[in-house]
């Protein structure tokens, strides 16, 4: 059963989404502003709700259960708010220092493994065992990493073999960029296709999608031709 609520969700959603797409026309328009401000407004509201809930569940509930040390979190949180006060902004420095320290501690303790030692270990592979394809793969990866790495040395002058290696590394990088660009395009296309699909499945939404596309496109062209765009589009 498709309810009136389902219909309203599909209609408003498709219309606002097409308004957002109207930026592809090359000009900002009141329609785009409507979609953008809707997203920012409701989106920020959602963030407020979720964060408040997090503070409530993780902080206040546990404090009421007797985990009193978490009161410290509320005090530090209150102190950090002074950041925007013109006179007392120094109050925020200690909590910022603590938050930064903990954050660095968290990231420094693990990335050395995931981003450094393990990546080195993974590059070290047998280069003379296995079938031809495996060998081709392994040789390419090993040589690419080595050549690309030399491209990224900055505190020494690149001369002689080092310069040649760096040049090769640059070529390898661009070869990689082609493949990565294609993968990225697939990803963005996937996001777009996935979005369009949310308006083609189930099939009753299809007419709504097509109608919104036509209406918004027509509106933007009309607004552009009549000069409404210049008159009503917000100046940032």
């Amino acid at each position: 059963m498709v309810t009136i609520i389902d219909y309203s969700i599909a209609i408003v959603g498709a219309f606002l989404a097409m308004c957002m797409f109207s930026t592809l026309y090359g000009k900002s328009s009141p329609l785009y502003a409507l979609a953008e401000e809707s997203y920012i407004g409701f989106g920020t509201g959602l963030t407020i709700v979720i964060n408040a809930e997090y503070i409530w569940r993780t902080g206040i509930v546990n404090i009421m259960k007797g985990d009193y040390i978490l009161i410290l979190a509320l005090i530090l949180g209150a102190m950090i708010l002074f950041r925007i006060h013109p006179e007392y902004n120094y109050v925020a420095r200690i909590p910022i220092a603590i938050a930064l320290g903990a954050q660095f501690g968290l990231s420094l303790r693990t990335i050395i493994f995931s981003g450094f030692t393990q990546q080195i270990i993974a590059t070290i592979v047998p280069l003379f065992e296995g079938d031809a394809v495996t060998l081709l793969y392994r040789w390419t990866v090993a040589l690419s990493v080595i050549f690309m790495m030399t491209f990224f040395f900055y505190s020494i002058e690149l001369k002689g073999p080092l310069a040649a290696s760096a040049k090769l590394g640059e070529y390898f990088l661009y070869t990689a960029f082609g493949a990565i660009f294609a993968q990225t395009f697939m990803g963005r296309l996937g996001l777009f296709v996935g979005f369009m699909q949310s308006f083609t499945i189930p099939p009753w939404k299809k007419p709504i999608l097509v109608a919104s596309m036509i209406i918004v496109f027509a509106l933007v062209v009309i607004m552009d031709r009549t000069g409404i765009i210049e008159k009503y589009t917000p100046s940032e």
Partner: protein
Amino acid sequence: MAEILKNRELQLIAMALAFLLVFIPYFVESPALDAASTKLITITAIVNAVTLILALNSQIRRGLNIIRMRRRGWYFKAYMIATMILMVVFAFFGRETGPYHWVMYAVINPLSSVNYGILAFYMASTAARAFRARNTQAMLLLATGFIVLLYQAPLTGAYAPWLEPIALYFGDTFGMAAGRMFLISVTVGAIVFGVRVLLGKEPTVLGIGREKVDE
């Protein structure tokens, strides 16, 4: 009190202590230290959640300024602030049904999707314009990009299975090597930056010195 809070050494010490309390237990086997570090981590998470208020402050102030000055399109800002408040109010009426649920699926879901989906268009126009064999680098980029794009079209994969090993070769060797190279250098960069801050070589990060935030 003010003097203590302004003391730069004290801030560095607080930062270093917080750092060590989180850092050390990962390497040393000690349940007591582990528990202490978890607690500190939770506290930090809550403090981070509170900082949202700072962002809200600037966002609302800027919106109100535009409304007050009646700049062109000011009513969109008024609309933005109204929707923000509405969403918070809606949350009190339950989330599985009702207005909160409606906004989630009618506004946030589709608009969030468009924000990233639209990038497919920019990628497409970039490729159409820039994938040109201008020099060696561009030629290499064009060649691999072309092959991988061709392979990624699902239909090609089904009818030209011989293309798969070639396309995967580029992605899994050059692409992966570049990914690994970036990872190694970004990792080292991030650690060095962290150490710099911990050593007090980056005072701006703590907001010492010039720190008036104005809009």
